[in-house]
């Protein structure tokens, strides 16, 4: 179904111009006001508090000096449960924590929350360089693609090499970095290259936050090796924010790292929604000002609605469901999204086994035939310039 020029239940891009797209993470460290769209879903505060607590303990040591420490933040959760948003939120808190006026030397630093101009691009932090390796949407496809664009099996050496090169390339665009970094930064030996990089960061007094997407390793050894690599490089003011869909990580993390190493690792989890999240989420959108037209209002009776359990599986499912319901209401020229429409949709959208019949194995998957309930998939309809803009916050 084509998206109407609708701005409900989506993520505002830089500038806030419509359309507000679904399936986009909130990137508060990059776009002003995204932090206000944050819904304190049932499980999220626990994760955020965990992060804050851990960070407070270690933040002082996360410095680019020779003796400085780093950190590894791993967020695990099923697709659509808001891992990327949580990760970006953590990055934002990390940046904010370091930009505290007491310790920040940036004269023009703004205090958080005071954003007179919502949805505008936030000034890059002077204390932290944030490098989302595959852009803010944080999908692993780029890392797993060959130069010609085909998906290829992720191979540890290649992935690490690509991460190195991306980080170096991004940092070189940081003002003053090119002047202080030595020639070893382009060395094919990752050890030399990384040391040159951290030396340069130390001279500039900057930290580095690297955001790494979920990579489909499909292999325990590779997964462990990659996390150990991230942990090893998370040193001297470098913080790795790693996302993974692998839910078995919780059991494995104690085996991947020993007790001493675990002090430098924070593991956060995302999960399914709770019944109260329905009301929380709707109320946020009911009260949100400045949503561009066209839009529908949310009728109060919707709050009393008893939603079907399958929409609580993830925030993405809930968002998609409400977004499509709002689209329908708009098409029907209704001013409000009402309970009756939503209840009807619950019945219509109930997952049906017949939509998942096995096809002829030789026929290719056509995305148009995907059932409407499919969530967590990025629509490939973003104009090229839009995508480019998002990848370079």
């Amino acid at each position, binding site marked *: 179904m084509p998206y109407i020029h609708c701005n409900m239940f989506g993520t505002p891009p830089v500038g806030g111009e419509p359309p507000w797209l679904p399936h986009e993470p909130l990137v508060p460290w990059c776009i002003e006001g995204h932090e206000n769209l944050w819904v304190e879903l049932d499980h999220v505060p626990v994760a955020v508090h965990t992060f804050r607590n851990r960070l407070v303990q270690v933040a002082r040591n996360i410095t680019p000096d020779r003796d400085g420490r780093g950190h590894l933040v791993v967020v695990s959760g*099923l*697709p*659509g*449960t808001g891992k990327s948003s949580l990760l970006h939120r953590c990055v934002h808190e990390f940046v904010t924590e370091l930009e505290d006026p007491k310790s920040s030397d940036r004269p023009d630093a703004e205090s958080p929350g005071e954003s007179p101009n919502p949805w505008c691009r936030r000034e890059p932090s002077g204390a932290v360089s944030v490098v989302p390796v595959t852009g803010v949407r944080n999908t692993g496809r780029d890392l*797993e693609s060959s130069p010609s664009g085909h*998906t*290829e*099996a*992720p*191979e*540890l*050496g290649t992935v690490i090499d690509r991460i190195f090169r991306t980080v170096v390339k991004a940092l070189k665009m940081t003002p003053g970095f090119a002047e202080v970094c030595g020639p070893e930064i382009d060395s094919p030996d990752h050890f030399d290259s990384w040391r040159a990089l951290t030396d340069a960061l130390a001279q500039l007094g900057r930290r580095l936050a690297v955001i790494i997407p979920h990579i*489909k*390793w*499909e*292999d*325990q*050894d*590779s*997964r462990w090796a990659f996390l150990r690599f991230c942990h090893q490089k998370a040193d001297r003011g470098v913080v790795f924010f790693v996302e*993974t*869909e*692998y*839910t*078995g990580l919780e059991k494995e993390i104690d085996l991947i790292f020993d007790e001493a190493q675990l002090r430098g690792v924070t593991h956060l989890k995302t999960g*399914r929604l709770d019944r109260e999240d329905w009301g929380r989420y709707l109320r946020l959108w009911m009260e949100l000002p400045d949503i561009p037209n066209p839009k529908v209002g949310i009728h109060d009776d919707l709050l009393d609605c008893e939603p*079907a*359990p*399958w929409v*609580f*599986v*993830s925030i*993405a*499912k809930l968002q998609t469901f409400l977004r499509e319901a709002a689209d329908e209401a708009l098409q029907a020229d209704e001013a409000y999204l009402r309970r009756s429409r939503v209840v009807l949709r619950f019945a219509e959208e*109930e*997952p*049906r*086994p017949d939509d*998942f*019949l*096995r*096809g002829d*194995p*030789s026929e290719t*998957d056509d995305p148009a035939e*995907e*059932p409407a*309930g*499919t*969530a*967590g*998939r990025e629509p490939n309809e973003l104009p090229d310039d839009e995508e480019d803009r998002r990848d370079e916050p």
Partner: protein
Amino acid sequence: MSPDASPVAGENPFRGSTSVQLEGFGDTTQVGTGPPRPPIHVRRRINEQLMEQVQRYLQHTGDSSTRGRVLALVGEFGLGKSHLAAQVTDVLRQSTPTPALWVIGQPSVDMRSVFQHRVMSPRDDLEAMADFLQAITDYYADVTAELLEQDDTGRLGGARDEFLRGLRDRRLDPQKIARAFDLDEELIHSHLRRHLRGVTDHRAFATALALLPNQAYQTDIFRWLSGEAPTAPLQQRGVTQPIQGIQGVFEAFAVFSLVYGQSDRPYALVLDEVDKIDEWTTQDRALFLNAFEMLVNRYVNQGGLLVFCVRPDLWSSLPASLHERVLPLWLDNWERPATEELIKQHLHGSGRVPPGGSCAPFSGPAVGQIVTLSDGVPRQILRICEGAWDHAALGRSPKIDIEAVHEAIRTTHEKRPMSEAARRLERVLAGDQWWHNVPPRDLGDLPVPAGSGEPRWIEVTRTAWIVLLPVRSLLTRSGVADIEGFLGQARHVAGAIGIEMLVVVNGHACRLMRRQVADATGTMPLVLDDPRFDTALRSGVMSLAERLRASQDNTVLEKLSSRLDVLQGQQQTLLERVDSIDHSLDNPRSLSPAPAADSLGARLPEPVRAHFRDTQEALDRLLEEGDGPRLSLVPVARTSAGRPPRPRRLLVDDTVLRNMGAVVLARRLLEAFREAIVGWWEADGAGGDARPAGRDQGELFAICRGFEISLESLPRLDRGGADPLSGPPAPAADLGERAQDRLAQLADRVLRELGEAFSGGHAPLL
């Protein structure tokens, strides 16, 4: 065909390859422009048995674990094992749904190259690839269902159970579901890998197969499954080696069998020429057999069809555990109807229609000869037919007769000149130093059968020889008769010399002819073309030599033993005689005066008196005449003047002594008999006229029987059972015969006569 055209003209219908090569890949493209030759199948019992098994496999319904079967086609060279195997592959390739089929023409030590280049791999056709993916998807579905069952989020909505059932019934696509319902694909993958590890019992295969649902790996994995080296991403995940070695390749087949077997699809492996492993080292053979046994177990347990061709020798040496699981189908030799059918089908195939169901232009006797001479081996039948056809066509003969058949065999099998055959013999025999023996006297220029090579003589001992006779193909009874004649003549000329013969056929010898030669000569002929000829010749000569030596030893021993027997017998007789003389001296007859013979004779009952007299007379005569030449003490005539006459010394021969003793003993026995009869007759105390009421007929019988058995213990007086060493018969022979005759019949007569007189009826016969 017009009647005036020669029936044996045009293209030879039997020309063409007589051995079948199994094709690893199904290829139905027609080659060339001419019409394809129809495949020729002669339906025999074995075909039906085999096809029945294959059809039962393909039509099996129900539990797939009871479907699996392993068939062995067991038979000698040329009986059509590969032909049958090819028929099986054709049937399998034409059946729907097409089963996955792997065909190995012949196993090789370098199994990797066979696997990589000559066996169908899933990459070779889209259907196989899709099959393979489907099979893995089935496992994926099971794992997904398992994970969803544990999921309590309600993500599947109200139709949860239906989803789970659909996944387990293989109706729903697990990957679509995993993506649509935001499942943890990494977790599914790790469960799938664990599951496949249990299923395949092989880590590398489990890793590779578990990655198959991910498109990014598919090419790499299919390449690896086709025998190529693993790519870096696969190596990183633990698939470090290509599929190689005998073990590795068989493991791959076993894994394929699991993939297809557990997803209930039919699949088959056809393995020809397993006998190749005979040429391998012991280690490779052991490896092969172990891996093969494992594969057989898998196929039986997982619902696969495995067909392999093997020769009887190897089949019987396979381990018992294999024999238990494999159903052997034995190929037998073809009989006449099948041979005729084969010939007819070839004639039909070339557009010739023989009239009246005959095999024309082959004559009836010619077909008979083909049946006999080919031993019922179809490959031989075709070769003979081809050659006979060529021969007849060359001679513009309107039909193919026995002569053409024989000529075809000679042309095919007698390529080696006799001189070459002799060289071969020399090479083999010289190695064991059996070669440089000149023929024994008088046998050097013995005429040999026509066409035979020069006979070679091997001296085993001075009086024992082996003769090796190289001959041409044995085609007729007369050829065998010639050989028999040669041997007979040689034995005749050689006299006491022992001769064994070994016939070496430089050409063709069918089983019947070989047996005939064996009947005639006592040894099986050896065929020069036999690959094991050298060994057979060597061991043949060795065992014949042994046999000759042993038989000579036996002759000497037998002579010695019989001589010793005679000596022992004589010694025994002498001892007995000395004993009896001793006894007579100790118990002189005067002490217990026996009644005079006359008086006793008079007291005998009337009916038997004459019999006793006759017998007594015969014995007396014999005693008077004595045994041996009449004795004479006339001095030896003087030989020269002045010398006194030389006394003659009479020597008593053992035999004479024994015979005389026998006569004396017989007389004493007769006397005892007479005495006993008189005693019995007079037991009553009354005269002969009285009614013999008190006499016991049983007693009479006992007396007569006693005489008879005692007589048997005496040496015969007529020398009927005389030992052969005792020389020519003496003049007293007829006397002895008479006496023996009388004695032998006496008891019988006495019993009869007295029995009649006693009861007026017959006495019981002895």
